[in-house]
């Protein structure tokens, strides 16, 4: 009996950790843009929806996986560049709140636009990853979850490598550190920002595919931004490492709470539990796990 419970506990815990990696993936899109341009991009969720809807429609038109992926990626790049040109550039040097509100407007446009173009039906998305549970010792784990976590992990690792080890990554970091200094040494801000938005588009696409395969491609996909916020708060808005650790913590506590605490209140606590975890944590560490402590000057 006791052993059963421990086994169940670990199954829930591992399931939570794995879905936590997928939360990290969504949060990563935010961090990327926030780090380099100080914009908290609420439209990230609608970009996930747009990417997933586009991909699934292209697949349903009979295109092979790679072609559909490439076309969607190109569309995301066009979207990113357009956003940079038409929304972000005119709002240069405005307050963070204004920039956030602009992305809120943007999310309405992308969300409604995606559904206008592709319709509002729910589409099933099959990535060819089987979902049969595999046994690791006594604990059974969803194969899909493992694959999704692996894909997310690879992408995160690639991004960290890109940021730390490549020249473009270095310019990204320079812009994140001090846009004016970056400008002064001759970096082209607008080009870098466009690149950042394109990268965020790529992340949105991968997140859209994984989440779409799990939940079905539909409007509610854009609501996963709301899952990413607590992760961001926990990890710090500007830390890639933080989103991963934050994602794991949120994923695990959320699943555990849902299974072991939720029934006490009649369930449904997953809508807010992650937020409370993040808030309590914040009261102890106001800049998150790995967020930068900003010294302000008057």
């Amino acid at each position, binding site marked *: 009996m006791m052993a059963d419970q421990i086994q169940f506990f670990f199954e829930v815990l591992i399931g939570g950790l794995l879905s936590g990696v997928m939360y990290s993936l969504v949060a990563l899109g935010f961090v990327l843009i926030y780090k380099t341009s100080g914009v908290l991009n609420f439209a990230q969720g609608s970009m996930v929806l747009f990417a997933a809807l586009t991909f699934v429609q292209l697949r349903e038109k009979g295109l092979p996986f790679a072609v559909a992926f490439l076309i969607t990626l190109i569309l995301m790049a066009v979207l990113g560049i357009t956003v940079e040109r038409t929304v972000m550039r*005119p709002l240069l040097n405005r307050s963070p709140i204004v920039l*956030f509100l*602009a992305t809120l407007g943007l999310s309405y446009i992308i969300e409604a636009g995606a559904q206008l173009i592709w319709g509002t039906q729910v589409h099933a998305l099959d990535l060819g990853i089987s979902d049969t549970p595999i046994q690791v010792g006594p604990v059974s784990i969803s194969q899909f979850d493992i694959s999704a976590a692996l894909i997310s992990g690879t992408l995160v690792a690639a991004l960290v490598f890109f940021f730390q080890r490549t020249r473009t990554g270095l310019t990204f970091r320079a812009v994140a550190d001090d846009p004016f200094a970056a400008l002064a040494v001759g970096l082209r801000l607008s080009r870098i920002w466009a690149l950042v938005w394109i990268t965020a588009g790529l992340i949105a696409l991968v997140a859209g595919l994984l989440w779409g395969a799990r939940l079905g491609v539909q409007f509610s996909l854009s609501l996963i931004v709301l899952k990413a916020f607590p992760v961001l708060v926990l990890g710090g808005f500007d830390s890639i490492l933080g989103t991963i650790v934050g994602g794991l913590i949120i994923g695990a506590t959320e699943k555990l709470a849902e299974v072991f605490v939720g029934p006490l209140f009649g369930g*449904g606590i997953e809508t807010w539990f992650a*937020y409370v975890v993040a808030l309590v944590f*914040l009261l102890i560490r106001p800049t998150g796990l790995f967020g930068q402590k900003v010294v302000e000057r008057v």
Partner: protein
Amino acid sequence: MTSLSTVRQQVLAGIDSHLVRRLAGPLLILLAAYGIVPLVADQYVIESLLLPFLSLSLAAVGLNLLTGSAGQLSLGTAAFMAVGAYGAYNVVLRLPWVPMLLAFVLGGIAAAAIGIVFGLPSLRLRGFYLAVSTLAAQFFVQWVFTKFSWFSNDNTSGVITAPQLRAFGLVFSEPTARYLFCLTVVMLLGLAAERLLATTTGKHFIAIRDNELAARIIGVPVLKTKITAFALSSFIIGVAGALWAFAYIRTVEPHGFNLDRSFQILFIIIIGGLGSIRGSFLGAAFIVVLPLVLSRLGSAIFGGIFDSGVVEMCQRMIIGVLIILFLILEPDGLAAVGRRLGPTLRRLLWRQ
């Protein structure tokens, strides 16, 4: 002697005409709102335009105090409306001897209390970290009212049906009566908010918005001011929620106070003008009328080709575009447009 009296007369005349000019606009609006509107507006206009307009305006006034004036971004406005509505409902239900107006005030106080709880993190958190805390309020409150049927008198899906509006021994059941009731409450609270901004507390709000550290250094009690902003703003939003439930839709479900509603009120203050009480009203009018105009326009141009889903998507897109355009081109919103047009209009009127 004569010269002195002429001067005196001129000065008095000056004050007189200045006062008249200053008060003419508001008085005309009041006259129109109380005198003309009830005579000309039919039931449809009142029920589907004026009542939502008034409740949303008041909610926007509340949010504008917090976000526009004190600079604290809130994404949980609808939650505070819900607390106001459910609070007032429960007071009326459980303490039948309490006058309804007092129930509204208590609903507002309940909202203020919840506002303070979720505003407490603002003592340590800034900017987006705080916004996330208000999102927590949004989801938590909605969950509470859906899950615990005690709040909705044991209705399993959390739906409440508000009793008839009563105050001073009168029953406000006709649309016109409910409109006048709403109008009075909104006018009084709007005026109070306007006055608040002229007080020291109001100045403190603005100081914190513009530069928190600088405000602290010149001696603004930052913590107290932030909590005050959360409390007053949530109180007004709570009363707006009570009006929404009692005077406007009357049968309310928790889902009616979802995140989209919070965003809607945020959009109202962006379009109307951040930090402007007058802007809250202009923005609310805009947001209430826009969908109607768009759907009329759409069916006039395209006929009935498109179904309601497509029309709704188009509306969302247009709202999104408008938000971005306003932020880029007219950051001070319709209130600034009004300020620019005001003098021109006045000159035209007074020249005759």
